[in-house]
């Protein structure tokens, strides 16, 4: 049974509930039921009373109830919701923040426009997010974070001129650390890996804030891996992990690195128990598949249910992950290719290019990855393992897209 160690730490009831939760996810609950014991615990709330988030949440919610028109109070709560969504990978908080801002009476302040842009980019509504960010900057021209997000969105959309512009503005807005990170990534995404790496290092030397350090270390690790310097990449990932912050992106990136290095056991150790987040569950399932573990099918089935649930509500934000799941876990090349192509219409980072290339190669079709070939040519990006995949693709005959 998975998580049997929980039983030795928690009580028997908890263990039992845990067992049934696992079963309900892996086997599907048969039908609605009427519990017999009034004390049966049906649900554990995600934020516990004792933790600082819970008291802040309560405090901010009460403040908003007292002063629902106060922009600062509403911003603080909306921002907290967004941060909680990020740290825990729990999108419900995004919905709360959205409703809070929707219900705000009167014109949105620069801060509220900024938070709304975060929510919009989270849903991959990048154009709407940019509109909010520009409006926030019009109201408050030295809003460094807004430039930072403009750059982040530009990089996702492979708009490197736009990213450069935002990086320059970050310097003018007095945010040198963010600027260094911004420039470093833009350089790396346009094929200047060594210069990009140096710029990110420069940013790291300036960064004090642990959150910023974690971000820069993660991205340094990624650039080092693109350069083929795996030992260096590993040391950056390990430094980032030593900061002791919960960060779903770092865990996912580190897991991908380990999977590429054929070190699935470390991924299992890292992600066991973190199945709540779809991206981490995907990596855990891939790791179990690599080790040939008998747990793999149950995790794949769990992913089946997750993706089915998001499809039901018409949510398309996880298409990159779903493409990987289709290609590597379900071996469904057709679906993988369609998903990776659809994702590439919206997101064009190197990882989005990679899954589309892998799907196209698996399908033996060159035409669907035409946009990636065009991007690689125009951007000059040359990180591993994309170069190798592109070479393989070039051996396929050109077809009609």
């Amino acid at each position, binding site marked *: 049974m998975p998580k049997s160690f929980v039983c030795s730490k928690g009580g028997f009831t908890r263990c039992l509930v*845990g067992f049934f939760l696992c079963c309900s996810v892996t086997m599907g609950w048969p039908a609605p039921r009427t519990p017999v014991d009034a004390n049966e615990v049906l649900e554990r709330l995600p934020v516990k009373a004792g933790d600082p988030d819970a008291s802040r949440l309560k405090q901010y919610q009460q403040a908003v109830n007292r002063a629902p028109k106060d922009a600062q109070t509403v911003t603080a709560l909306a921002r907290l919701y967004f941060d909680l969504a990020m740290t825990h*990978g729990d999108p419900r908080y995004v919905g709360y923040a959205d409703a809070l801002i929707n219900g705000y009476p009167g014109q949105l302040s620069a801060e509220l426009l900024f938070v709304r842009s975060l929510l919009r980019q989270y849903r991959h509504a990048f154009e709407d997010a940019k509109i909010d960010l520009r409006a926030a900057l019009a109201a408050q021209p030295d809003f460094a974070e807004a430039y930072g997000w403009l750059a982040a969105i530009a990089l996702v959309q492979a708009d490197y001129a736009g990213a450069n512009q935002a990086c320059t503005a970050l310097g003018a807005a007095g945010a040198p650390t963010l600027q260094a990170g911004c420039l470093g990534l833009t350089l790396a995404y346009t094929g200047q890996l060594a210069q990009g790496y140096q710029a990110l290092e420069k940013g790291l030397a300036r960064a004090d804030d642990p959150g910023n350090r974690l971000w820069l270390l993660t991205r340094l690790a990624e650039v080092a891996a693109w350069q083929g310097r795996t030992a260096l990449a590993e040391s950056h990932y390990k430094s980032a992990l030593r900061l002791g912050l919960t960060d779903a992106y770092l865990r996912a990136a580190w897991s991908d690195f380990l999977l590429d290095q054929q070190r699935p056991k470390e991924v299992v150790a890292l992600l066991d128990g973190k199945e709540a987040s779809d991206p981490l569950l995907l990596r855990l399932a891939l790791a179990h598949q690599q080790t040939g573990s008998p747990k793999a099918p149950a995790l794949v089935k769990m992913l089946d249910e997750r993706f089915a649930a998001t499809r039901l509500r018409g949510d398309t934000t996880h298409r990159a992950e779903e493409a990987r799941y289709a290609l590597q876990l379900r071996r469904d090349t057709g679906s993988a290719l369609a998903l990776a192509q659809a994702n590439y219409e919206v997101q064009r980072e190197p990882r989005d290019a990679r899954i589309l290339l892998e799907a196209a190669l698996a399908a033996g079709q060159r035409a669907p990855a035409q946009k990636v070939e065009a991007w690689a040519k125009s951007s000059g990006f040359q990180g591993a393992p994309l170069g190798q995949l592109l070479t393989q693709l070039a051996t396929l005959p050109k077809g009609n897209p």
Partner: protein
Amino acid sequence: MSRGFWGQGVVRAMAMAWLMLMAAAAQAHKSSDSYLAVRAQGDQVSVQWDIALRDIQFAIGLDANGDDQITWGELQQKQAELQAWAGSRLAVQRGGTCSFRQQGLQVDEHTDGSYAVLTLAGQCPQRSGPFSIQYSLLFDVDAQHRGLLKLDLDGATHSAVLGPQSGVLKFSEAATAGDQFVQYLREGVWHIWIGFDHILFLICLLLPAVLTRRGGGLSSTGMRGVGGFREASVGVLWVVTAFTLAHSITLSLAALEIISLPSRLVESAIAASVVFAAANNLRPVVQQRWLMAFCFGLIHGFGFASVLAELGLPANALVLSLVGFNLGVELGQMAIVAVFLPLAFVLRHTPFYQRGVFRLGSWAAMLVALAWFVERAFNLSIFWWT
């Protein structure tokens, strides 16, 4: 997940996060959904509504003792409040507002945790007419919440995602059985007309109907026109009836999912049937064309069934729609015969018919069908338009 890390400065204690994840282990993090299953038969409506306990907690509060756990007892205590809250956020209309009485409270599990299951029974002012649903659960506190609706309206199923912008969702009355019948009849006609392989097979069998063998030899060169129209039409009637009977049998068996054959096999066999029918005109082997029509008709029925499978048969009028489709195919077929037979009859004595249409036509049909066969059996593409 798209996220950057710009200016993120929130410090989290790893241990705390670990503890939280432990508690939530195996439950997915996903946006909030409720599952709304509505079944309407005439003026009677029954609803099963699954709402996440986490969402109920956020909207009206469930954790009475503040221990961050929701027990069955705590949920039961709030039953009345929950029912009033949820009930005020769902409006169903059929000829006016339907009134509901709450029936029960149960629990169920979905991928992201435990759900309260509310069952409601309702009565609408009218037994027929358009049916509408207005849904507004949680939208005031969670703009990403969605209601996932599954509606069974007089036997026809609909599904929809209910969001803040959905407003009042109107579902027109399920098509009556008569409407369905007519719709499938039309589809049947349409599909024989665009099914070149079926038409070609039929024509190959009909071509010799206006000719008769001189002296009973096996050579196709010794053909002459039949004497009377009666003789010609009797032959046609036999062929058409046998073909119809055969493909009706297999179409029904396949549509009702009693037998299923791989489509590549069926499609290849259909092409082969045309090759055989055309070759039989040129060098007769089988004299009883009705027998050929029957045997190969069985295969063609499976072909029609694949078309029908794409259309889907409505659950509430399964047999009627199947009969409609089949009749449509017959009507389409009769139309082809009605055009073909008089023309062929008039031209039957001419060398144009005997050599041009009959011999050359059979050769052409055989070659085309042979190419179809190769395409279908070996999954190749020979014709540029296919």
